[in-house]
């Protein structure tokens, strides 16, 4: 992490010029969509760290990377597209500087360490984060995690293996007693 902090320091010293450049890019940037398919392998590895294979399938096996890319390319706001795209590049840069390799070939422990650092750097529930989300869009990690959870829990493997899914319940039992280890319903 040392080199990144150093870069951060340099950026801070160069001051307003850089900051306003970033600002303009945030708000008016004409983001170049269509780039994420080139990051397919990286995104597959990322979603699989967020939801790894255990006795139930992981996000990669469930094809969640495709959903993340499809959503970001076609549904996301420009702000969040930029946050996500820049986040991917920053993450690779971190891996190169800290581990001298790309995220895809980092060890499990290294991958977890990199994401942990991103996770703890943004307290999703703090007021500051909420205000920031409103103005600048959610952070890279927030976007990655929420799309992975959504993509996985609505995938066939996620909905039927980790969770419980009934396409056509047929009846409604309004009050049941929870069975030991009963899984949450995938859909409400």
């Amino acid at each position, binding site marked *: 992490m040392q080199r990144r902090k150093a870069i951060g320091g340099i950026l801070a010293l160069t001051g307003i010029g850089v900051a306003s450049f970033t600002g303009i890019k945030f708000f008016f940037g004409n983001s170049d969509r269509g780039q994420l398919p080139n990051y397919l392998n990286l995104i597959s590895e990322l979603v699989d*760290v*967020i*939801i*790894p294979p*255990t006795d*139930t399938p992981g996000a990669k096996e469930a094809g969640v990377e495709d*959903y993340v890319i*499809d*959503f970001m390319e*076609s*549904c*996301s706001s420009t702000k969040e597209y930029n946050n996500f795209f820049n986040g991917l590049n920053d993450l690779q840069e971190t891996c190169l500087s800290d581990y001298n390799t790309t995220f895809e070939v980092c060890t499990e422990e290294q991958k*977890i360490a990199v*994401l942990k650092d991103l*996770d703890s750097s943004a307290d*999703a*529930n703090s007021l500051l984060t909420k205000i920031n989300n409103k103005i600048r869009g959610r952070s890279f990690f927030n976007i990655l*995690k929420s799309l992975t*959870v*959504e*993509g996985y*829990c*609505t*995938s*066939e493997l996620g*909905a039927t293996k*980790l*969770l419980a*899914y*009934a*396409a*056509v*319940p*047929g*009846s*409604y*039992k*309004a*009050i*049941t*007693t*929870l069975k030991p280890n*009963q*899984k*949450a*319903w*995938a*859909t*409400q």
Partner: protein
Amino acid sequence: MKNQTEKNTFDAIVVGSGISGGWAAKELTEGGLKTLVLERGGAIEYATSSKDPWEFKYRTHLTKEELKERPVQSSHCNAGDKQFYVKDSEHPYIQEKPFKWIRGYQVGGRSITWGRQSYRLSDLDFEANKKDGYGVDWPIRYDDIKEWYDYVEEYAGISGSSESIPHLPDGVFLPPIPMNAIEKHLKESINKEYSDRTLINGRVANLTEYKKGRGRCMYRNLCSRGCPFSGYFNSNSTTLLDAYNSGNLTLREHSIVKEVIYDEETKKAIGVKIIDAISKEEITYYAKIIFLNASAIATASILLNSVSKYFPNGLGNSSMQVGHNLMDHVVNEGTYGTYNGLLDKYYEGRSPGTIYVPRFQNLDAKTTNTDFLRGYGLQGKGNRENWESKSTEGFGIELKAQLETPGKWKISLGGRGEVLPNYENKISLDLENRDQWGLPLVKVHFEYGANDLAMMEHMTKTSEEILIKAGFENVRSYRNSPPPGSAVHEMGTVRMGIDPKTSVLNKYNQMHDVKNVFITDGSCMTSSACQNPSLTYMALTARACRYAINQFKSNLL
């Protein structure tokens, strides 16, 4: 009446095939009248109704492209049901003040996507205008419509519980959709904490038992995509089907009604002029009876566009009330809370139902509210959090464990309040700006009044208090309010009344000025009450049809 042939002449014309148009089609055709139903949209198929979540590339989300085409509709639709909502880009209107005009142009109209909540009005509602002086008096009372509520409920299939609440009359009910553990908990708490209010099973048009020719609710809770089991009431699987089976129905799709044609000699309407939505050709159809069921805003705009020497301000508009008195229900964004208990309870199946706290303000001297006139009810739903609503920590194995277990119970509550009729709230036509068919654009001018806003504030406070008293935690409300129109209950633009000088329709939904034109969609409503209105449109339609058929057979029309 040149060009009138047997082919383009019918006994009756119905404009619109949604909830009320479907009923008019059924009643008129079964009454023996050759009936033409004109629908501006096309036929539908239930293309998404049986899809699993993973079959949607973008899950429930709309793409940026789709959002751009639907700046207004997008708040009310998702990837599963967007095909039943118009593209705003193709069907523009002018918002002089923010107003959401949510529309579905297709056979069945908005009966495909409606919320299915079905409540009777009572004399508390029918007498409200007379008592406090807002708007004009309704020309009917509960006794005039009671048997028609019975009739349409029996046919439509309304699940609900009998509660003996004087101002929310019981009806002909199928067994209610039961309450789950948290909903029961809230009911018990309200019974204990309050003497003035109660919580009941929502009354919804979902079949809890089989009905002839239709399936039963399968508890998928995917109603708005259209139901392959015909488990809820909509025009397509019920009224239009019966109309078709009568042998008297002609349904013409892609037919945009431009105007109703008035004949000065007979002082009656003789037909309607349509524009074919695809070929843009103009065609005239003739009939002895015309029912307008295009929905409140569209029906008023058709009348305003039907200009003749005798009616320079629009057909049947000698009162100058057509287009005015637009109402919607006032809604808040909702209140949420979680409950730390009952963790050994769950449910199986997905309820399309709700819970309901009927209006409890301004019923009598004891329940007088000093902040506002009239009142509101609260609708809600309880379930256990799952991945969609749970807030989770971290990632990896730890995250999977959080996702796979059922979360806390939560309940959401939202108010539906009565909006006072106000002449200033209106729709009008912009003759300078026209759509692709050359029709003037509709302008909507609507603002909540002080009474409406006071009610909105109150429903949020009340919801919070109810949940806190029931032991809920993290009770929060969204304070910003959705724009008017969001309840999709627009009504009042062609109101019923006793006096032709101040109202457009008489007590049989017949135009005071033009006796063979009937209007039974939301535009006829003299006041909005706070109940979801579709059931009342159904009952008024069936009642008006009976009257029209009798008049027709006695050669009075």
